[in-house]
């Protein structure tokens, strides 16, 4: 597992309760990255904010209901909360939508309070964010950012 870390910006939002953002999408999430995020949340007495990023196809209105992606998001959010319960870490789940995953990510960092983002970089065809999204996030998101490279074969997927 490799990781990069950026220094926390002085103006990053922080109100006493550390909030660790953990974005993922319909392609699944890497258990190793989730565990890392949970360990960080536990060590800092913080809250994990798992964010499912939903992609709205161009032909649909941006606020359209997304039943197929909901079928993936709901079990994944449940799985994250189950894992968080094992770590005794509080969870405050989110779903954010956008025309692309990066768009949804941008809206997430605009609308959410957070101190740190933990995300998995894609390994091969596995889940996670591609190099372009990671670079964009490092350049644009405030707060600490931890990028993890997950094991390529291990995935929590929705149903």
């Amino acid at each position, binding site marked *: 597992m490799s990781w990069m870390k950026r220094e926390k910006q002085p103006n990053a939002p922080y109100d006493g309760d550390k909030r660790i953002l953990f974005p993922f999408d*319909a392609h*699944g999430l890497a258990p190793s990255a989730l565990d890392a995020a949970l360990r960080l949340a536990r060590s800092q007495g913080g*809250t994990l904010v798992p964010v499912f990023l*939903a*992609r709205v*196809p161009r032909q*649909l209105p941006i*606020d*359209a*209901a*997304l*039943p*197929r*992606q*909901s*079928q*993936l*998001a*709901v*079990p994944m*959010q*449940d*799985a994250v*909360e*189950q894992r*968080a*319960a094992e770590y*005794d*870490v*509080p*969870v*405050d*789940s*989110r*779903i*954010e*939508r956008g025309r692309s995953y990066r768009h949804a990510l941008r809206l997430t960092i605009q*609308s959410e*309070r957070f101190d740190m983002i933990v995300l998995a970089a894609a390994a091969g065809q596995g889940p996670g964010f591609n190099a372009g999204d990671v670079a964009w996030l490092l350049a644009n998101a405030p707060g600490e950012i931890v990028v993890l490279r997950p*094991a390529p*074969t*291990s*995935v*929590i*997927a*929705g*149903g």
Partner: protein
Amino acid sequence: MARGHHKIFLGMAAGVGKTYRMLQEGQAEAETGRDVVIGYLEPHERPATAQQAEGLVTLPRRGISYRGNRVEEMDLTGILERAPELCLIDELAHTNAPGGLHEKRFEDVNDVLAAGIDVYSTVNVQHLESLNDQVSELTGIRVRETLPDAVLASADELVLVDITPESLIERLLAGKVYRPEAIQPALDNFFKIENLSALREVALRQLAQDVEAKRLPSESGLALRPGSRRERLIDTQAQQAIGERLLALITPHPGAQRIVRRAWRSSQRLGAELDILWVARATPTAEQSEQLEALRRLASVLGAHLLVEQGDDVALVTQRVARERNITYLLMGPPHERGAIARMLRPSLAMRLLQALPGLDLRIVANRTRAAERDIPEIEL
């Protein structure tokens, strides 16, 4: 190359006959002239199962040394080289010993399907990832080997192999499931009528949910089931004809998302609309507004309707909304413990709603997250 066809035989527990049924159907396919092989079979020393496998080609297993022992795993490379038309693979949720191409057998199966080979496989319902918590709560036993729900959802066919809990216990007692020395421990632990009945219900619901999922139209460009040959029936009008409508009663706090997700799952099974209600006594605080916004986004993605009503009496407002919107099913979080005097002075919200709305089903959604238990505010009475 077209992806192979995947048929999964789902059961409530070991011994219901999944492997037997898979072999039976494999034999039938072989009889029609198809090239059918057994990629991996876990006969569990069951003579009837072994007999059913006779005549089918069983591919050699791959031996691996693991912690000083020799274990045998399915030989993925051997299957791909042999390239049969149909491959029978037992125990989809199995975790491979280290040293193979993949960590989990379902990943091996994915490679077999990608090679254009049809696969029949088996799994028990307690292995499903999203049901792990529920099954653990029902049976007191947590299953370590889990299977992502997406694997089941992407299968072309799902066959429920179902027998009554009583019949399964009879089979167990007759030595058809486990060796004699393993029967009593099994009866003392997992194989109890109440456990099996609960698991059977979960399996039946899972199948019903799968049928519902097949009826949903695709609204997204996301290829959930690439290459799937299943028909998609677009019949939402028919789904709603039964007239169920759900209401999730929440307060804006992080645990509300779980209640909404649980309500949405129920609404999907029933083909029903979902409303979400918060009865606000005063202007929301900053924290409540933040949670409300998150709930609004969740509701929007799920296709649910978030309602915020002002009122001092939650039961009265809920009663009004339930009547106006023809609610048939209400879900809410667990009430907080109240003292004896408080209980005497005023019945709980749940009791008041049951009395006021006798035609309504009420479900209390348990909170299983230890950390969240500390933080959930009570619905204001």
